[in-house]
Structures are given as structure tokens and as C-alpha cells.
């Protein structure tokens, strides 16, 4: 079973600025669940595209409905791959959960391109939810059934195996996991967009991005000052503009 979600959005910043904010987006006040971010690998390919693989460690519990019959999950690792093509001005990103994939796999893909006038950036997001929860047991059940010649109610037998005391079959459980996952992911997309907006606003205040896109800083000393402000000001919880975001 698979569920999809698609969304389009636009940032009022140049493509160059948005790609920079993407690499600087954690931590921000909307991402307090992100515990750490590490770069696993980075290289430039023959076409001049920058490839980055990062891993994010996130804290977060599943909704109570799910924790009733699933092992408790307190954290997860998210794999993020990105490709920046500065020539065609396309940034493609993908995030997916590395663990708990037998319960729910969530793959989010985004494509960032400049809008026609060049002053804003379009983002197309698609998310794919796939729960295979209980599939392995289904196979076991089929094998068991073959061994018991003359079982007249194979469907019922299978249902019983996937009855968690809620009266749901396996399909129902998978569907519920996907729906809850989708609801969570849509909420997450809203807060990650707000986070990007805030990071962009703050980068502009710091002076790293301006009307022409990303500004050069030049001297070593002024770079150090800018970098110190990036580290100090972007994660700050105060002065969040209530108008920022979606």
C-alpha cells in the first residue's frame, strides 16, 4: 500500500539564497526535534553538480494510537541526499527514514527552481508513504495454511493473525499507519517551510544574502564576524515574526 502527497510553494528569495539556506536550516526555532546533523559525504561530479549526503537525528514519538501496538519509537535517523546544479539552477533533494522502515517508510523529494523573474524560488514537494507492516506475517500465515490441509477458512485465519484487538485487518493497520504518517508529514512540511523562511530572513538581516542573491563577504575578519552571527542568530527562539511562514 502506498500513499502520495504533493505540494507547491514559493520563497521570495533567489535560488542561490534558498540553496544556501537549505544547508544552514538546522537548527532553527521550528526544528527543535532535530538533535544533530552530520555530513556523510560530499563531492562534485563531472557535470559540476554538488552532491551531499547528510544524516539527521530526530526525536519524536509516534501518535498514541500507534504506540498501543507498535514498539515505542523515540527517535529516528533521516538520510538526506541533495544535488545542486549551479549551471541549470536546479536543486534536487530527498529525505527518507533510515530506521523503522518495516513500519513506515517516508520518502520526501523536493525540486527547487528559480521562478521566471529570478527573484523568487519555486519548490515542488512530493512525499511517498509506504507501510509494509505485517507483510512478513502474511507470508508466514500463507505457509501455515498450506501445512494445514483442509483449513476451510483461510481468509478468517489470516484476519485473526492481524487482529490487534481493534478489529482491523492488516490492510487497515497499514492504511492507518500511512494516514497518520501522512498527517504528521504534512504538519512537518509546514514547520520546515516556516523554518526555511526564518533562516532566509535571518541570513538577509545578517547580510549574507541580499537583493542580488548571495553576497560576497570578502575579508577574513568580516567573514568571521558574519559566520559568528550565522551561528548565534539563526537558532534563536526569540523575535519570531508571527507573519513568517505558510
Amino acid at each position: 500500500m502506498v500513499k502520495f502527497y504533493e505540494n507547491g510553494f514559493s520563497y521570495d528569495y533567489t535560488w542561490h539564497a534558498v540553496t544556501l539556506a537549505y544547508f544552514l536550516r538546522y537548527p532553527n526555532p521550528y526544528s527543535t526535534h532535530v538533535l544533530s546533523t552530520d555530513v556523510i559525504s560530499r563531492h562534485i561530479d563531472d557535470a559540476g553538480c554538488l552532491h551531499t549526503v547528510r544524516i539527521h537525528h530526530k526525536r519524536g514519538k509516534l501518535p498514541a494510537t500507534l504506540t498501543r501496538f507498535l514498539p515505542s519509537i523515540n527517535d529516528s535517523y533521516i538520510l538526506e541526499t541533495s544535488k545542486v546544479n549551479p549551471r541549470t539552477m536546479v536543486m534536487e533533494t530527498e529525505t527518507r527514514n533510515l530506521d523503522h522502515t518495516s513500519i513506515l517508510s517516508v520518502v520526501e523529494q523536493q525540486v527547487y527552481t528559480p521562478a521566471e523573474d529570478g527573484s523568487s524560488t519555486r519548490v515542488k514537494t512530493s512525499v511517498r508513504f509506504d507501510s509494509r507492516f505485517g507483510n512478513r506475517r502474511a507470508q508466514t500465515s500463507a505457509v501455515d495454511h498450506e501445512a494445514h490441509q483442509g483449513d476451510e477458512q483461510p481468509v478468517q485465519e489470516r484476519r485473526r493473525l492481524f487482529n490487534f484487538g481493534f478489529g482491523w485487518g492488516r490492510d487497515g493497520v497499514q492504511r492507518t499507519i500511512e494516514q497518520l504518517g501522512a498527517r504528521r508529514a504534512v504538519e512537518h512540511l509546514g514547520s520546515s517551510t516556516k523554518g526555511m523562511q526564518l533562516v532566509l530572513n535571518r541570513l538577509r538581516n545578517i547580510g549574507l544574502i541580499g537583493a542580488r542573491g548571495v553576497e560576497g563577504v570578502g575579508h577574513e575578519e568580516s567573514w568571521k564576524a558574519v559566520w559568528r552571527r550565522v551561528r548565534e542568530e539563526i537558532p534563536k527562539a526569540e523575535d519570531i515574526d508571527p507573519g513568517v511562514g505558510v
Partner: protein
Amino acid sequence: MSASLSPECLPAKEKYDACFIRWYTEKFLRGERTEDETCKKLFLEYSQCLKTALDTKGISKMLDEARKNTEDSDLGRRGT
């Protein structure tokens, strides 16, 4: 910048992050295609530190599995 999975790798990570962001804004986005040697060296130090954490937390194994699962489907489909 964000924390690291492994607190002892944070100093190395911060040095590398600062180097990368400066290169990204001042070189890469302005059309330069070559990697920065200083950043490369800093990345090596950072990733050597991180490797231990990735192995002990079982993340290296998860990464290998994810790579196996995605190489055929996703990369082929998206290949631009």
C-alpha cells in the same frame, strides 16, 4: 550550526561547516567547479572522527542497506 551525532566530533564538524559554507557562497555559487583543498582536509578529519560513531550506533549498516535499496530505483529514475 547544528550538533553532531558524536559530541567529540563537534569541533571538527564546526571547522568543516564554516569552510564549506564560505566556499559554497563565494566560490561554488559563483561558478567555480573545483573543491577547496582546505575544506577537503577538514572534512577528512571530521569524517574520521564520525566514522566510529556511525559504526557503533549501527548507522553504517543502515546506510549500506538504504544504498542497496535505492540505487536501482530512485537514482535511475531521477538521473538528471
